[in-house]
């Protein structure tokens, strides 16, 4: 029984990170119909920027996170700016462009911070809570809380603000949105910036849990992408549910199938997607691509 509950705790902890990564994927997708394949690498940049300010300039963790979110948000704007001439012209090239950006970011990180990577000390060094033999790291509770708050803020932004509604409109029909005077390019840039900011949030938070290295974007990106698909690509609550689901699936597969867990996770994922291609919260309105 302890194994069962401990696996749930572990799965949810890493799942919260996947959820944050998935939210960034989904936001860009619902606005532009584009999968940003550089997203995993933006997560890595976020992790590096946050840990650099946290460790070398001794800034508080929260401040370092804010700096990381701003820096990567700017990177998001740059990516969108470079890709903008392709918008409405060649969609496939845009996709490949994001892959190219991912490779560039990884190479840049290797040049700036070296290939070795770094370990980040936990900003919440308290002992894990012990609930009837189930141990819960306080830091993981912080991560789960931040993921929940980020989701709520993003939902509020998209549904309650004018800018957010405009982005929704672009997502649904960009020609009509242009016709009523919405600046599609700006809307896309904001989506990219927020998406990159979410990536930095995920990266910064995952730093103390894992190990920060130029290659860390790979696994996080793939799992986050899978989470977004599973939750319903483009759906923000779906990203959260999908992230937690992938985390749990990961945890239980690891317990049951050991060395073959990765294969099992993606087989189950494939089966789920075949049964329900739109994911858990699939919305047809945002399927713009």
């Amino acid at each position, binding site marked *: 029984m302890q194994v069962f509950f401990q696996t749930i705790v572990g799965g949810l902890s890493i799942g919260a990170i996947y959820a944050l990564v998935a939210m960034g994927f989904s936001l860009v997708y619902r606005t532009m119909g584009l999968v940003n394949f550089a997203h995993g690498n933006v997560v890595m940049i976020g992790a590096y920027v946050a840990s650099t300010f946290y460790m070398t300039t001794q800034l508080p963790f929260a401040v370092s996170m804010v700096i990381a979110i701003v820096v990567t948000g700017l990177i998001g704007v740059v990516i969108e700016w470079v890709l903008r001439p392709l918008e409405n012209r060649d*969609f496939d090239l845009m996709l490949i462009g994001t892959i190219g950006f991912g490779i560039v970011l*990884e190479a840049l990180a290797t040049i700036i911070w070296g*290939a070795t990577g770094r370990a980040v000390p936990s900003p919440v060094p308290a002992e894990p809570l012990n609930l009837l033999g189930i141990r819960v790291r306080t830091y993981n509770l912080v991560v789960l809380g931040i993921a929940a708050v980020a989701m709520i803020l993003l939902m509020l932004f998209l549904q309650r603000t004018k800018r957010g509604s405009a982005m929704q409109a672009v997502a649904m029909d960009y020609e009509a949105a242009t016709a009523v005077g919405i600046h599609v390019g700006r809307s896309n840039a904001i989506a990219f910036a927020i998406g990159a900011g979410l990536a930095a949030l995920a990266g910064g938070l995952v730093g103390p849990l894992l190990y920060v290295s130029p*290659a860390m974007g790979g*696994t996080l990106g*793939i799992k986050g992408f899978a989470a977004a698909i599973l939750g319903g690509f483009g759906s923000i609550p779906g990203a959260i549910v999908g992230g937690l689901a992938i985390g749990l699936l990961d945890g239980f597969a*690891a*317990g049951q199938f050991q060395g073959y*867990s990765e294969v099992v996770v993606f087989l189950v994922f494939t089966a789920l997607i075949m049964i329900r291609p739109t994911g858990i919260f699939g919305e047809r309105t945002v399927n*713009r691509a």
Partner: protein
Amino acid sequence: MHSLRNPRRSAAVGVAAVLTLLFGACSAPGASEKAADTPADAAAVSGSDQAGSASPGSTDPIKIAVVDAQSGQLSSLGAWESKGAKLAVDEWNKAGGVNGRQIQLDVFDDQGDPTVGTNIAKKIASEGYIAMIGTSESAVTLAMAPVLAEEKIPNITSGQSPALAELKTSFLFLNGPTSVTYDESLAKHIVDEKGIKKIAMISNNGGYGKGEHDAFLAALSARGVTPVADQVVTMEQKDFSAALTKIREANPDLIFIGSEEVEAGLIVKQARDLGITVPFAGAAPQGTPVYIDTAGAKNVEGTIVSSPYLSNETSDASKKFAEAYKAAYNETAELHGAKAYDGTNIFLTAMKTSNGATGKALADAVRATKYNGLLGDFAFDESGVGIFATSIGVIKDGKLVAAS
């Protein structure tokens, strides 16, 4: 305009891109080659392309290739290895080179990927490199070995998989002991000397982890000990709750880790969070600063390590090496750099004694070389292994020291 947003087409590209990423996570041959090409290419073009086949009296530089992971998850190892090799070459060059010829050392990035490694093997053969200082990723070395044997390029690898020794090609050498030696020494210390019999194992399913798992399990079996838990994890895994909780339930007195630096560090960190207090044990990766930093110094206290290079303080030679390493890179030297340094020195010594021989003659010269290195006294056997002993160390106050 709408026709340009063909949903099927972009979906297809999307799927293709996902596949690329999926495989790219562990290997991206296309992209990687580019990374590997640039620096080395430039060097190769500027240098003479026939240096390798030059006659002994030639004054052209001797071309040696360093092949290891300069990017990807195992790049910290690659960085240490190429630094160790470069340090040895710089010292020789400063002292006048090998028989008056300077040594040209070029670094190639294999990304820890066997496919990329094989391509590089062909590349260095065609560009006249006469020897290779190889990677610690045994899977890559295994993939490269047939090509290098065919092209008659002697190479010395930092890998330690027993499968390397079983190849018995006359061109492959190991700059350290194999997993069998590491784990036999470790089991001897833990079971025979310490009397610990309740042992749990956790290892990954990669080339290194599998080798460690098999070697340690064999060493335990030989002593009539059965592990109380035997958990296997993947190399991509980030959360080890399930495996560690099972180990916690088995209540072992010691946990053996067969995994690389970073993952082993994460395992220990999460184990401590789960309330596991018993010490860990493992081979070379568990003695490195990356392992200690990833897990946190407090968490790795008491880790038992089997390593041929316990610290920079063991001997005068290691002190001198550590000083030179620190001066060159402003970093503390460790095992992987020392191994590459030893291996490179052995090759350069063989080139000197054989008066600039290449191919089979150089391989024979290497085999005949008796070298007193940082890891111990090298004397190569048929299988290319030159060291057959490791020492046991313990991590105390965040530092690896010899076990009492």
